[in-house]
Structure formats: C-alpha cells, structure tokens
C-alpha cells in the first residue's frame, strides 16, 4: 500500500516564515527569532533529507536569521539620545509587504475564477498563438513580442550554421571597413548584437580580430559601463 501525499509548495522564504509565524500564533511585531530560526532550519533539514530541491534564497534567509539572532544576543550599550533599531525591523516590514501581496494574490485568484465562468464568443481564438496575441485592444503590440521575434531570428541563424559549412570569404580588412562604415551612420555599435550575433564561428573570429585591430590603430573606442554589461564600440575621436 502506498500513500500519495500532496505537499504545498512554499513560494519562497517569506512564505515559509509567515507559515511558521501563523502556526506558532506569534505576534509578527515581536518575533522570537531564536525559536523561528530553529523551526526554519528544521524545515530546511527535512526538505534536504527528502532530497527536495531548495532554492538558494532559502539558504540566504537562514543566514539572515542567524545574523539577526546574533545581533539580538549582543549586549546593548545604550548611548544617550540614541535610538536603537530593532534588528528584526526590516525582516518584519518585508514579511508584512509579502503578506499584503499574498492576500491580494488570493483575491486575484477569486477574480480569475469568477471571470473564467464567462466565455466569450466562439471562433475568436482559433489556436494557442492567436490566444497569446489577443490582448492588444489599442492597436498596439507588445515590445516583448518584438524582442522575442528578434531573439528567435538570431537563434535561427545559429541553428542554420550546422547545415552550411561555407567558410565566409570575408577578411579582417573588410570587416574593419564595415565597422567604420557603420560608425559613420550610427553613434555606436553593440558588440554583442552587431558583431557576435553572426552564426558562423569564423565570422565572429574575424569580427573580433577586426575590432582588436581597429582599437590598436585607435580608430575605435571600446567601452563597457559595468562588468557583464553590453560592450559598446564608438568611433575614436
């Protein structure tokens, strides 16, 4: 005989914490951090013993709880006039905000259910794709669709390269000229989009070499605002 048990999924650490607070009938404005931390960790341990996937955010929260607990254990030297902030303050605010949204989400679920009892006229949604596009009442399409289309068209190119094994005759000199020509008509070029999005590996390599050469000759300037951000290519002025 086997039992199949349904387990509710906690949406995140706040969800789990709120559950523990409710279960323990705890005053949210005065959370016994030691007790809650212990229960929280026990729960994580159980999940782990069951080989359940635990999202990183749950672990981060465990560390946060430990930190708050440590702070609360520290002896407090009350200086005159100084307001001491409760180490739990931020956590409580976040929990309240999440609870508010959770309640709203439950109401939304009710709206969704009520609305799903009404069916629009048939023949309006012939298939899935039509349905996904159905919302633009104001003669407007979503920008998301545009980006997805662009993404897809570039992906298609990458796939294509598996079928054609034609080495591109382009040379580094040609690519250098092409880059400079583009910079005549536009202010800057996105490194990823313009130069690395060509499917053929050889072209990417040639493009890359062309950029290095231009940079060496001080004909272009390369800049990146932050690590991992887009790299921009400007004309050297």
């Amino acid at each position, binding site marked *: 005989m086997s039992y199949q048990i*349904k*387990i*509710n999924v906690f949406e995140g650490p706040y969800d789990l914490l709120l559950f523990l607070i409710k279960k323990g009938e705890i005053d949210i404005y005065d959370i016994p951090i030691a007790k809650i931390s212990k229960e929280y960790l026990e729960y994580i341990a159980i999940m782990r013993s*069951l080989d359940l996937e635990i999202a990183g955010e749950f672990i981060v929260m465990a560390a946060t709880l430990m930190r708050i607990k440590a702070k609360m254990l520290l002896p407090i030297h009350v200086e005159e006039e100084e307001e001491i902030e409760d180490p739990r303050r931020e956590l409580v605010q*976040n929990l309240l905000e999440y609870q508010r949204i959770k309640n709203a989400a*439950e109401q939304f679920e009710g709206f969704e259910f009520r609305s*799903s009892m009404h069916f*629009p006229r048939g023949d*309006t949604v012939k298939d899935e794709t039509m349905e996904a596009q159905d919302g633009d*009442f104001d003669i407007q399409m979503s920008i998301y669709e545009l980006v997805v289309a662009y993404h897809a068209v570039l992906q298609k190119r990458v796939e294509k390269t598996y079928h054609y094994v034609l080495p591109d005759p382009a040379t580094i000199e040609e690519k250098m000229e092409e880059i400079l020509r583009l910079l005549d008509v536009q202010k800057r070029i996105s490194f990823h989009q313009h130069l690395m999005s060509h499917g053929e590996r050889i072209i990417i390599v040639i493009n890359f070499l062309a950029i290095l050469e231009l940079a060496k000759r001080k004909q272009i300037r390369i800049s990146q605002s932050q690590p991992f951000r887009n790299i921009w290519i400007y004309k050297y002025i």
Partner: protein
Amino acid sequence: MANNDRKHIVEALLFASDFPLSVKKISEIIEDITEEDAAEIVRDLRTEYENLERGFILRHVAGGYEFVTRPEFAVWVKKLQAERRRSRLSRAGLEITAIVAYRQPVNRADIEKVRGVDSGGPLRTLLERNLIKIAGREKAPGRPLLYKTTDEFLRFFGINSLSDLPQLEEIEDIIQHDAKETGMAIEQLHVAGGNSGAEEMRSTD
C-alpha cells in the same frame, strides 16, 4: 437611422468583436452617433440582456463591453470547449500579477524583493500571456525595464479598470488568515520524514 436600427448595429458590433468594445470605438465606427449615444445604447442593451435571462450577457470589462455566456451555464460550455480550456495562473504568477498591479510601473528587482525569490520563469509566462507588458525604463541607475499590467489583464480578471482593484490596506489585517492548507504541508513532511502526529491528512483522490 431609426433608434432601433442603431441599437441593433451596436449589438452586431459587440457580437462580432473579439475584444471588449469601448463606447468611443463604437462611436467611431458608426459615424452618426456620439459617444454619449453609444453609452446610452450600451447601457440599455446591458439591462435588456440582464432581464431577458438569455444564454449570454453584456459584460463591462477592461474599459469596454463584451458579450459573454452566463456563469450558470459554464459547466456545459466547458464541456464544449474541453480542448481549449485556458490554464489557471500559478501562485507565483498571481503574486507577480498582484505586485505589478499595485506597484506599477515596477522593475523586476523590486518584484523579486517583495517575493523573496527569483521570478524570471513566471514573469515570462505573464509576458507571453500578455497579462503584463514592458513599459519603458526607470530613470534610475542602470535604467531597469519597467512592467505594467495590460488591458488583457483587466479582461482576464474581469475588472473594468485599475481603480476597481481592492485597496491593499483593506486586506492587511487578515494576517491571522487560515493556515490550514499550508499547515498540512509541514505536518505531512513530518510524517514523510518519519515523524508523526499530523492531526488531519488527506490522501490524493
């Protein structure tokens, strides 16, 4: 054009449209009626259908009007449309929708801050279902993308306008809300982990 004709043209338009028609749109299509006329006709039609108790009613949603079947008949219509039933939103989807609805325009980092978890997956679903949309960038460091709800969001939830959303504050004090369902989760885990003591337990049906 006789009054009765006007009414029936409006009726035909509402019937033929696959999205809620605003009175503005109606007055644009039928040249010799004003927005006020259209509003009056639609109001009349709505009352009429309500009273006639026919198979469908005129619903005021997403800033417009659309014919939809009466909720009492949903059970039969569902049987007819078994193959194209729309899927319900997940809890994550509902939470993100709620955050966007109340905090819009809002960026992804702020959504994730409220939820406490990465939200890329459900965000994608909502964008694909056109319940939320990208609406520009925030004038802040990094210029993050901003998200807003769409007209489809209103229609999906059967809401006429954003101002009809319940106030967030109103629901704040339900904090001692029923923990019954979630409660089961932990109890069952204890059982699963070898412990016992669950007071109430469901097997799947």
